[in-house]
């Protein structure tokens, strides 16, 4: 009977097997847990299968869903357009669909390190412009109010743009805080601490209520722009803290080496400190990305319909009342899946690009 915590393998132990052999080893070494799983599967397994597959309704209308005893998957199928695109006008749906496809493909391509070159930034500027034109209209396409953009489309736009622009802005803030001299440095500190103390939702309310009051009517921004500005501000502040942590972890010797080479302080920061700081800050930045993907749900409170807002609105449809639990389960599964993948990706990046200690 050892007091060693069980997750730490003993030195010299055999390597852990994979696949089905691991499952067998697990069952054999933890008979109590295995017994619990087997009993649970026998007790609830058939009921679970019956409820979610056999008696579930996959296609049909609300009436057939109410008769059936199982899950109403048809609700999700019926409302999938609202979940994905919010209240976008049905006639122009092809624009939202192509914009979403473009955004997802662009994000997927940007995740692969092979494509990390200068051209990618120029491509993103072009893609952002293209998506904005597709969604809002203007030259050649009928204009659509930005308030009608919703669903997953909105969540992705908000989180991608806030994180993508937040990292460079956060870098500027972090550098300003550290190297800005007495006035600018303290100003950056005050700014960062103030914005960090206030919840994002309060910032959203402030922006949506104060912007029409303070700015003249001609340039008063829509709620979408307000939300974008607030998320950008908040993510730049959090990224500034993460990058400051990274900068502090770069050893003083690196700066002295730069000085010995005759570099000015600005070049030291740009060429020596920031590249190393970024690598150290990857875990924190990954956490920030995941957190902001989850925070985009807050726009539902200022009246925009993001993914969760679209699910709420769909479940209040009078024809489909009473299926809100299916909607919530779908939202839970979706966010869990995506955030889990994001954290795995962050771990992979950290492993591939960190310096071996």
């Amino acid at each position, binding site marked *: 009977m050892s007091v060693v915590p069980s997750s730490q393998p003993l030195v010299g132990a055999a390597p852990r097997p994979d696949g089905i052999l691991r499952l067998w080893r697990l069952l054999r070494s933890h008979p109590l847990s295995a017994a619990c799983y087997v009993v649970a599967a026998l007790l609830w397994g058939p009921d679970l299968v019956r409820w979610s597959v056999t008696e579930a309704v996959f296609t049909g209308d609300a009436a057939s869903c109410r008769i059936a005893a199982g899950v109403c998957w048809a609700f999700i199928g019926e409302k999938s357009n609202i979940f994905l695109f919010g209240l976008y006008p049905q006639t122009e749906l092809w624009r939202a669909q192509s914009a979403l496809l473009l955004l997802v493909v662009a994000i997927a391509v940007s995740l692969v390190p092979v494509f990390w070159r200068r051209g990618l930034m120029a491509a993103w500027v072009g893609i952002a412009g293209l998506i904005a034109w597709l969604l809002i209209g203007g030259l050649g396409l009928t204009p659509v109010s930005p308030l009608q953009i919703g669903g997953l489309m909105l969540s992705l736009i908000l989180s991608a743009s806030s994180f993508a622009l937040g990292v460079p802005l956060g870098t500027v803030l972090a550098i300003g805080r550290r190297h800005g001299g*007495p006035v600018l440095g303290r100003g950056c500190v005050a700014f960062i601490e*103030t914005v960090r103390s206030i919840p994002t939702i309060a910032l959203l309310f402030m922006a949506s209520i104060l912007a029409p009051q303070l700015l003249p009517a001609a340039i008063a921004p829509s709620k979408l722009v307000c939300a974008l500005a607030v998320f950008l501000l908040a993510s730049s502040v959090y990224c500034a803290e993460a990058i400051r942590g990274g900068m502090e972890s770069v050893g003083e010797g690196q700066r002295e080496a730069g000085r010995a080479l005759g570099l000015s302080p600005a070049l030291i920061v740009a060429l020596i400190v920031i590249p190393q700081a970024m690598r150290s800050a990857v875990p924190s930045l990954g956490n920030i990305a995941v957190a902001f993907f989850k925070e985009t749900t807050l726009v539902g409170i200022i009246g925009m319909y993001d993914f969760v807002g679209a699910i709420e609105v769909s479940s209040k449809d009078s024809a489909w009342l009473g299926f809100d639990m299916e909607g919530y389960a779908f939202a839970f599964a979706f966010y869990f899946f995506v955030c889990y993948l994001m954290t795995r990706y962050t771990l992979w990046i950290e492993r591939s690009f960190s310096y071996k200690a």
Partner: protein
Amino acid sequence: MMPRSAASHALALPVLPTKAGSRQGAPRRAAAALGLGAVALAALAALSGAASGKLPFPIDFGFLWSPAGFPIVDSVLPFSPEDSYFRALLTGWTNTVFVSLLSCMLAILIGVLLGVLAESRVAIIRQFIAGYRLLFRNTPILLQLLFWYALLQRLPPLRQSLDLSGLVLLSQKGLAIPAPFTERPASLGLAALLALLLLVAGWRGTRRFDDAPVLKARLRGGLLLGCLLMAAIGIALSGPQWSMPAIVGFGYRGGAVVTPEFAATLLTLTLYSGAFIAESVRGGIASIPVGQWDAGHSLGLTRWQAMRLIVLPQIVKLVAPPVISQCVSTVKNSGIAVAIGYPELLLATTAAISHSGRAIECFSLLMIGYLIPSLALGALLERLQKRAALPSAPGKLP
């Protein structure tokens, strides 16, 4: 002429300015934040004056003392629509602090328990805790709040309240329990205050017996008993009575009501923060060298005794900073209760704005309201760090 010291013969390194960082103290950051706030307020005043063409001094806090005109039902402080706007914001702030404090304490309890169990030898417990952590950390907190609220709305409606043993009523509108009240609150308050003062003064007084621990423990025990006795006498003298809940009209009358909004907010914040705290505690326990466990084993301690006596006291220092920052996050996250209508500070502020039209003043009070708890917790953390002589980050030189 003083000889130049050895240090000045070294390379003339660029002198980086003093970092106004985490070790420089909460008071300096507070001053900086408030200074920035004042500047921003003045700028906004000038802007809004320019935009609306009025005088550039529209900031007027005088409206705070006029009657609010909107009700706040579910709150710690009693509030009626004739009370002032200031009292409305104060009520909202008290609600925020109350629900955040309670959920922080519960989250720490849950987090420590689950963090300790996360390394259990029973695989199924480990897997369940890992599943709980994964689920509650990877889903948005607003979604969790809406889910719990929807679940609580499945309770029976008011007219068909569940009647548990005649004393407690449970329905969609909340859980109504009998509440004690007194007709002589002054005597109760006086007795409680006296007991508290005696306790605090006596506790510090027993410090002089630090070198006689048994005597100190006995003195402190006696002191505690004495103060409890005093409080009990005060309660008895003030003539306590019970107010029973009953269904009257569209709600409960009498007793204390735990509303579903409060319950959903508390549950969400507790479970969400608990997952993060469990992860911190688990990481803290995993960072304790195996030698500590072996030492416990060689002394004949069981695994649980080794955990309690050797490992946990060591991780308190490591885990305090992330736990306190999670408490700060909890205070900020309490803002989501706006979505279900629990009257915390943000909802009170938006109601005040829609009734008075004074957006800038109300928002500045909102910012101060959120700054106070986060700065207080930051100061607490600095005090703990100084006391325990922690480095500012694990593994770094102070």
